Structures are given as structure tokens and as C-alpha cells.
């Protein structure tokens, strides 16, 4: 069984009236099945409001399902009395870099997770040193987070998660508030962790360019998973993606348009090199 598995997962947001009675329920996640293997790089795509962030919060037990079951490393989240023990297995990086850094000094922030887990002092230092090195932030360890760029702050957040030695790391739109350089920087760091440390990565995003290198892509719409496959399979369905308020990288779009005009090239072209070799054979 995979490291994270969901079976018929459903979640309702409840709206209360002034007396505290449930007034309205809103289905945010509906009948979701997932099976994510250890070491995989999985991307979850979806427009704003498609339920992808709500799903993400289930993956490290910040939310518990209304119906269905979610397993993190063979433990059912709704049956674990001490949820923080699950959270150290599946770490989470959020969208806003400012709102997830707790420490006033970079290295102290990275140490926050291990401190909460009760790791002895010398071992905390070892973990902090390692995590900073893995994310390339060692040179900034004594800096104040406020003085860092957005991309650097997100790398600190990733280091903070890595220091908990999770099996899996969930990134909930980690690049949405960054400029293109920051986006590249964070993505590189994540890819590196997946490759070098074999950490399972679940990347939630609406930037299509970021999912090209994923092993597998899920597309969400209206709280359900509507597409699943390799990036190539997903991106060969340009019109379906448009219907789900998403788009494809420009190179894929160009190839798609050329194909529609009768040029004989394959669907699902993801890189410039592929297009060039298809056109100039």
C-alpha cells in the first residue's frame, strides 16, 4: 500500500447560524480516491475553489474527512488520538511565506518542528544543519526571515518541514505569491529533495509549467478528481483542461493548434525540444 491513500474521501464545510446550529453544508471534497507510492512526485492541479487546498489539508490531518477514509503511512487519520504524530510523517508547506515562519531567526524556525516533537537538543542542531544544507539556506541561518526574498522564505519553510524528517511533503500552492525567479528556486529545491532524498512530494498548484516533471498528475474540479495520468496524457487534452479553467504551457498549446490545422505531430508535447524535433524531422 502507498504512503498516502484515500478511499471515497468526502468533506463538508459547515456554515453555522447565529445560534450555532448548522445552517448550510458545502461539499468541498467529493468521492476522492488516491494512492500515492513512496518516492513519487505527484501534482494536483485545479483552479481556485476546485477543492485542492481542502484535499491538501487532509493529507497531513489538518482536516479530518466527513466521510470515507484517509491513510497516512497505514494509519487511518480519523482514528489517531495524537494527530501531531501523523503530521511529522507528512509535512506541509503553505502558500503565504510570511504566515508560516514562526522563528525570528532562520535556524530557530527550522528547529521549531523538532522542538515540538521532543527531539533532544544536540539532535535538533544536527537536523537543522542538514535541512539548511539540503535547501541551500545554510548561508542565511543567522538572518531574520523578514530580510529574505519570497523564494528564500519558502525554502526556509521547506527546510523547517524537512527537519521533521517526514516521509512525504505536501506543498499547497507554494509558488502562488512568488515572482518567476522565486518560483523556479522553490521548484528546483523540491525536485532536488524528491530526487536526492526520495521524499514523496505532493505539489498542489495551478501553474501548469510546474507539473511537467511530475510522475503523475491529478486534476480536480468541483471537489472531485476528474483527470488522472502522466503529464503527457493530461496535457494532450488541451480542450478538456480549458473546460476545467486551466491552461497548458505555450509550447503544448502551439503544438495543439498546429495539429488542429493539419500538421502531423503527436499530442501532448511538453517541451521546446520535443516540438522542434517533431517539426524538423
Amino acid at each position, binding site marked *: 500500500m502507498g504512503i498516502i491513500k484515500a478511499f471515497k474521501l468526502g468533506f463538508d464545510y459547515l456554515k453555522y447560524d447565529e445560534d450555532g446550529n448548522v445552517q448550510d453544508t458545502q461539499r468541498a471534497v467529493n468521492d476522492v480516491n488516491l494512492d500515492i507510492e513512496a518516492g513519487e512526485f505527484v501534482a494536483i492541479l485545479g483552479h481556485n475553489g476546485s477543492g485542492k487546498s481542502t484535499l491538501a489539508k487532509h493529507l497531513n490531518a489538518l482536516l479530518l474527512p466527513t466521510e470515507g477514509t484517509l491513510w497516512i503511512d497505514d494509519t487511518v487519520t480519523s482514528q489517531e488520538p495524537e494527530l501531531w504524530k501523523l503530521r511529522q510523517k507528512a509535512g506541509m508547506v503553505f502558500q503565504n511565506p510570511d504566515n508560516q515562519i514562526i522563528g525570528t531567526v532562520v535556524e530557530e524556525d527550522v528547529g521549531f518542528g523538532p522542538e515540538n516533537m521532543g527531539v533532544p537538543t544536540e539532535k535538533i542542531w544536527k537536523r537543522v544543519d542538514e535541512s539548511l544544507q539540503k535547501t541551500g539556506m545554510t548561508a542565511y541561518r543567522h538572518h531574520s526571515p523578514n530580510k529574505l526574498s519570497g523564494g528564500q522564505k519558502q525554502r526556509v519553510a521547506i527546510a523547517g518541514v524537512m527537519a521533521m524528517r517526514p516521509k512525504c511533503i505536501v506543498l499547497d500552492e507554494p509558488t502562488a505569491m512568488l515572482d518567476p525567479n522565486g518560483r523556479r528556486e522553490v521548484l528546483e529545491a523540491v525536485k532536488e529533495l524528491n530526487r536526492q532524498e526520495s521524499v514523496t512530494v505532493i505539489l498542489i498548484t495551478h501553474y501548469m509549467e510546474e507539473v511537467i516533471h511530475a510522475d503523475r498528475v491529478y486534476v480536480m474540479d468541483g471537489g472531485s478528481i476528474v483527470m488522472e495520468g502522466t503529464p503527457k496524457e493530461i496535457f494532450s487534452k488541451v480542450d478538456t483542461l480549458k473546460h476545467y*479553467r486551466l*491552461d497548458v504551457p505555450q*509550447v503544448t498549446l502551439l503544438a495543439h493548434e498546429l495539429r488542429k490545422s493539419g500538421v502531423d505531430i503527436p499530442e501532448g508535447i511538453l517541451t521546446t525540444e520535443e*516540438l522542434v524535433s517533431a517539426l524538423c524531422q
Partner: protein
Amino acid sequence: MSIELKNVMYTYSPGTSYEIHALKDIDLNIPDGQFIGVIGHTGSGKSTLIQHLNALIRPTSGTILYNGEDIWADKYDRKTLRSEVGLVFQYPEHQLFESDVLSDVCFGPMNQGKTREEAEAEARKALSQVGFKEKNYGKSPFELSGGQKKRVAIAGVLAMNPKILILDEPTAGLDPKGRDDILDQIAELHAARGITIILVSHSMEDIAKYVERLIVMNHGETVFDDTPKAVFSHYKELETMGLAAPQITYIMHALKEHGLDVDADATTVEEAKRSILAVLNENKSALLKAEGGCLDD
């Protein structure tokens, strides 16, 4: 209604060890009715530049003229200037505060001294021009989606009837559909009101699609100021500034290198498609002709 910047310099914390020259000797002329893009990496001075245009920041030296008048002259009415040069900041959350959408949009016009009725008329006009549905006028701005908040924020500035509208990264945080919708709306506004639009963006693809003039900022200086096509042909220099051309530019250059005689200056998918199809058809007919020639022999 032109803005003119002459030798504008701006220095943060002058005389201290934190001194930063955010703008260095900027000369710029913004005539009526243009759709201008501004790009530059974070810290290149582009935010500082746009805040000079509506007198939120006073230059350390140099002059800024609006319709030929120095906006930092003693008795110059900067409040009126700010309603003529509207600036919409990146995060709508920084300006929305009223309990309903309509009242929020009325805030600007009422600050101009209009009555509630007049302000509401302006607000309704602005909201409909940004494509915000009337049935949602009574909603709280805080329960709207990201794209809708952005529209209300733009309407809030538009309701003051600016002659120039500056938008700082209007698509940040929106999903692809939301991004396209808001940019189309801005382009429509440009056409409908005939106002000057200055669009600050990180997305080269968006810039290539919409603007007619592109200003590139780097280290507080304007490095390029030309049509997007002309600017993107310098894609190698853009890369040294931490910027890039649209992906299409790279594709076209790669194709050309591999012997396909396409228009390397194409910057949008549409242009690229046309150019590639034209070249392919030409090659095909050339090939047919060659084959035909063979048959004749």
C-alpha cells in the same frame, strides 16, 4: 494628459548604511491612450516608479510633469492628480473595507466630493465595466473570490474616472481562467474608455499578448523602452537581468536554428502558428514542385 519624468532619482534611507538607489536618472514620457507594460524582477524599481506617477512618493531629485505642470510645485493639487492617475495595488485586500461592494467602490468618488447618488452612479458604471454582476453589489467584499475581489478593487479606482490607470500585477494569485478574464476586461476598458493603461506584470506571455509598448526596469534604470517584439528580440540580455522572453520566442529561435525559416520575432501563440504554417506550406509546395519536376523528366 501626458506624464513626463525628467531625471527622476529616488533613494531609500539616504545617508545611512541602508541607502538604496531605487531609481536612477529616469526619463520617461507617457502620452495619451497607450497600453504600456512594465517588467523587471523584484527590486528592480518598478514599484517605486509607478508610485511616483501619482505622487505617492516624492522623488529625491528630478521633476515629474503632469500636463506640463510640476506635480511637486508648492500649490499643486495632488489629490486631484491621484484621481486622474489611478493606481490599483497588487492585493485587493489592502483596500477593501466597506460592508458591501457598492459602498466600497463609492469610497473614491465620495472622496472627490461627490454626493452618495453621484458616487453610486459612477460606482455602478465602473463595476459593470469590470464585468462585476449587479446581483452581487450587496455582498461583503470579503466573501468574494480572488478574481471578483480584484475586479472590485479595480472598479474602486475606476469609479474616480482616472485618465490613466496603473495596475500592479493584477493577475497575481489568480488561476489561468481568472487571469485571462481580468486581462481581457482590462483590454476592453482600454478600448471603451480610451484611457492610458500601465500594466506591471511578471508574465511575459501576458505582456506579449496585450501591450503596445514595453518598459524594462533593471537596477533602477529603464533598460528597454520599445514595442514588445523589439524588446523580446533582446531575450539574451533579458535573461542576464533575471527576466525571460515568452516561451514562444524560444521556440521560434530554436526552430530557426534547426533550419525552419520561421519569423523568430513572433511572441504569441497565434503569430507563431501562422508563421509555422506558412513555412510548412511553402516547404510542402516546394517539395511537390520538386516531385512534379521529377515526374516530368
